[in-house]
């Protein structure tokens, strides 16, 4: 199994898609809950697997383009088939995943194996009928949106009009129509005329869940810009600018790196945005630009280790963050296969671990604790024992239930609420 690089539930939560470093997409489907086994909630089983992207070679630049899937985003379901967007560094693809459970039988000109029959031997005509067959799930690429990004694509986001979507790379954001693959509109361009003046890149972007004219994008300098596409065709000038002033007591050479935003997500309500930087998760009210309304410390014990983390490049890790269906709980990953949840109402938080040893099926996860100094208690882990190679960068939360998917390197964990 390859390293998982993205995880995403579809809009109903019936399907869960993962993308990996090898360019594969694996889709899981939730079992229908059976009346016989009320105690057993629907489990997720593999539904479809396909190769979305292959490694490519750019002959002009003599560069290999990685097949790693950076993001998957589902389209809302409009008919029997499922549609999703998947992207690597350069190319976005629209995939159709559909079921086939019947096949036509009784052709006149072909026999059952598909061989042509000699017309002279046919004496009667029959009408082919559809007969049931074993369920087959097939994935077909319906659109390929290529050649529009010079830099690496970090985000894709489906618009609430369901007709357009955007793709963002380090310096530009493009708007696409699903039906048109040979053109896209550039809506944000922060590339300086003189590349020597480059000091900031785009790190993530997302459309507002309800307002199809509004989107946000975050930067490596810890800022978020909200743009309105009605204001102008090129949204280089933002409508709102979110930035928290630097805390002078925490200033260091690494201040900018740790302020770099790795993920930005609108709440389901559309009233808030959540951002993840290296040490914290912040919730912002769209109506207040000068500071976040909530800040949660993910792993503040790393603040004194920033130099080592700079040395081993861990300080550049890009963690994602997610809302639960009701926007009351937020979740993000950390190191040592830990992930954290923060309840915005009760202000309680918990640290859990996704690992084989601690996760037998149906076992209840035990909260974990990191010891930051002084005497370590029995179940605690000291900061120096943390495994920084085990990082949880990608997580997903079911849109309406308390089911979460956590990607720990090349393993996928699915957890759900305790069933009484």
């Amino acid at each position, binding site marked *: 199994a390859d390293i998982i690089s993205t995880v995403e539930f579809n809009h109903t939560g019936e399907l869960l898609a993962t993308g990996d470093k090898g360019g594969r997409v694996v889709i899981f489907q939730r079992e229908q809950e059976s009346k016989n086994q009320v105690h057993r909630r629907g489990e997720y089983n593999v539904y479809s697997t396909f190769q979305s992207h292959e490694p490519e070679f*750019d*002959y*002009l*630049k*003599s*560069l*290999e383009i990685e097949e790693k899937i950076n993001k998957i985003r589902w389209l809302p379901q409009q008919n029997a088939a499922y549609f999703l967007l998947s992207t690597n560094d350069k190319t976005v693809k629209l995939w159709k995943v559909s079921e086939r459970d019947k096949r036509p039988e009784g052709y006149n000109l072909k026999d059952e194996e598909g061989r042509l029959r000699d017309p002279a031997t046919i004496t009667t005509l029959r009408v082919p009928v559809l007969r049931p067959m074993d369920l087959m799930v097939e994935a077909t690429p319906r659109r390929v949106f290529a*050649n*529009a990004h*010079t*830099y*690496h694509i970090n985000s894709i986001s489906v618009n609430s009009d369901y007709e357009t979507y955007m793709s963002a790379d*380090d*310096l530009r954001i*493009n708007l696409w129509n699903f039906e048109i693959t*040979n*053109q*896209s*509109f*550039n809506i944000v*361009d922060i*590339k300086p*005329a003189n*590349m*020597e003046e*480059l*000091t*900031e*890149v785009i*790190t993530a972007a997302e459309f507002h869940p309800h307002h199809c004219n509004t989107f946000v994008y975050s930067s*490596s300098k810890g800022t978020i810009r909200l743009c309105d596409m009605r204001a102008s*065709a*090129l949204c280089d000038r933002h409508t709102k600018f979110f930035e928290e002033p630097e805390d002078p007591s925490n*200033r*260091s*050479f*690494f201040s*900018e*790196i740790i302020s*770099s935003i790795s993920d930005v997500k609108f709440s389901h309500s559309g009233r808030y945005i959540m951002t993840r930087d290296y040490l914290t998760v912040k919730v912002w009210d769209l109506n207040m630009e000068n500071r976040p309304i909530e800040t949660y410390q993910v792993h503040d014990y790393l603040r*004194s*280790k*920033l*130099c080592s983390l*700079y*040395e081993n*490049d861990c300080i*550049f890790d890009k963690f994602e963050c997610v809302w639960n269906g009701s926007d009351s709980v937020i979740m993000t990953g950390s190191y040592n296969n830990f992930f954290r949840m923060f309840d915005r109402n009760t202000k309680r938080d918990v640290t859990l671990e996704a690992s084989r040893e601690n996760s037998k099926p149906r076992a209840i996860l035990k909260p974990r604790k990191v010891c930051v*100094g*002084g*005497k*370590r208690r029995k179940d605690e882990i*000291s900061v120096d*024992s943390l495994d920084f190679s085990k990082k949880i960068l990608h997580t997903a939360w079911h849109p309406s239930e308390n089911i979460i998917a956590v990607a720990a390197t090349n393993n996928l964990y699915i957890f759900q609420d305790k069933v009484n």
Partner: protein
Amino acid sequence: MLSKGLKRKREEEEEKEPLAVDAWWLDPGHASVAQAPPAVASSSLFDLSVLKLHHSLQQSEPNLRHLVLVVNTLRRIQASMAPAAALPPVPSPPAAPSVADNLLASSDAALSASMASLLEDLSHIEGLSQAPQPLADEGPPGRSIGGAAPSLGALDLLGPATGCLLDDGLEGLFEDIDTSMYDNELWAPASEGLKPGPEDGPGKEEAPELDEAELDYLMDVLVGTQALERPPGPGR
């Protein structure tokens, strides 16, 4: 690391070493690090950053975010290491800052040069690889996106048009073609053989190494490939 024969203490009983060393990495302006000599502490962080920058620049396609963050951090470190750099170069600097100044003088120029050249190359490449051009309706005039189009358009003419214009004006065709995009060090000689036809004109000036034997070999390969691509179909 522990030497052989030394028994490691149990974790619970170990006293955590005060992580005072990490305080060195804080901004020298910060009150709590008044003791540590900033220039010395920062110089190893400086070296580390330069190392990271070089490593990043050596990649065929550098991670832009990583690059930008490292460069910005490096600039911060530079700024803190020699606050006197802003002053005019008076020839009587105290001993410690002069070390920093030398470091700055030698590495800053190289740093700026390599950063500048890489970022310039990135923008050259960007102009070449943009086909088809992303549309930007009523974008302000003179945007960099449109810059690549005219030159490529002129070259497109070169291919099919050459046959018609052999009598006169062939030299004239070359005159107004902007070859600055092709004067690009990043194009290693090896990759030039892979370039398609239309660029042979200006391209040849850049590649005197491609002699006749190599050209013949290339042609054979191309013809051979084309033959493979068109197998006789059934019933033809």
